């Protein structure tokens, strides 16, 4: 706490740690991808590539689950603010999907790394994401079993985008490992 020169009002200065800077950089990248993705037309509402999850997967691999959770949830909140969906149904679908994904990613962290890479994490998280979204949709938005008619489409999209995002994350991680000081460029 320091005294402000103006009116003698007290000013609270929050210490910003390097962790905060790093999380903010990653979250900014994830938010940018969310906004870019909102411009891509989708044949079915709810079917999106989830490009921001590439960032989450990379953070998970390099900095652990806690940082990944921060980036993911900051992405959901700030991304929804930017596309005008904050507290709209889409926001809650997104939030519940992200929470379920993080839960599954936390469990998947226990898998042996030698055999299960970012692609596994990505597919598991993608399925958890649609699971969470369907849960909100069924319990709240469309209280009818009709929502489950869309499960085959969602599951197919989750599988395809899960694999693609996982591969992209794995490739970016490999590039980062070969050039450790390149992190500032990507995030």
């Amino acid at each position, binding site marked *: 706490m320091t005294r402000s020169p103006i009116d003698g009002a007290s000013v609270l200065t929050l210490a910003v740690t390097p962790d905060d800077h790093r999380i903010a950089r990653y979250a900014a990248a994830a938010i940018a991808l969310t906004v870019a993705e909102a411009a891509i037309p989708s044949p079915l509402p709810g079917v999106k590539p989830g490009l921001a999850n590439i960032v989450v997967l990379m953070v998970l691999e390099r900095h652990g689950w806690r940082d990944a959770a921060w980036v993911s949830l900051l992405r959901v909140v700030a991304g929804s603010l930017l596309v005008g969906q904050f507290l709209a149904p889409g926001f809650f679908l997104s939030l519940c999907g992200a929470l379920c994904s993080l839960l599954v990613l936390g469990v998947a962290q226990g898998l042996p790394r030698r055999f*299960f*890479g*970012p692609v596994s994490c990505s597919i598991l998280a993608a399925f958890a994401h649609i699971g969470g979204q369907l849960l909100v949709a069924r319990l709240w*938005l469309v209280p*009818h079993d009709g929502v489950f008619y869309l499960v*085959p489409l969602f*599951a197919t999209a989750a*599988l395809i985008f899960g694999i693609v995002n996982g591969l992209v994350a794995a490739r970016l991680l490999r590039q980062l490992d070969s050039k450790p000081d390149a992190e500032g460029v990507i995030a």
Partner: protein
Amino acid sequence: MNPSVSLWLSLMRPGDWIVTALGLMLAGVSYPLLWHGGAADRAVVRRDGAVVAELPLNAARRLSVPGPIGATVIETAPGRARVASDPGPRQYCVKQGWLSQAGAIAICAPNHISLSLAGSGSHDSIAY
């Protein structure tokens, strides 16, 4: 092999293939399980809102239903049904042709007769 393909494949670890296969299975089993419910299995014919006949959609047959201005002919075939002829002046229900989705309906208003398809867990539409 194309070098760029082998580069991407090198990113897959053994367990990743297992997870991919499991995901493929999960997506695969969801198709018949959840899309089967949309198919119709019987045609329901009503006159003035009261059911006059329920026809299973497993065989071809014709049914003539008398109404106030004449007879409406309902025709069924495996998995679908239609109004084959109707005495109404505008023929809207006949022009609708074959119906095959559960919840689909053809209404011959002048003759007070409707043909609707029912299935297990049928919906008119899903809006969101």
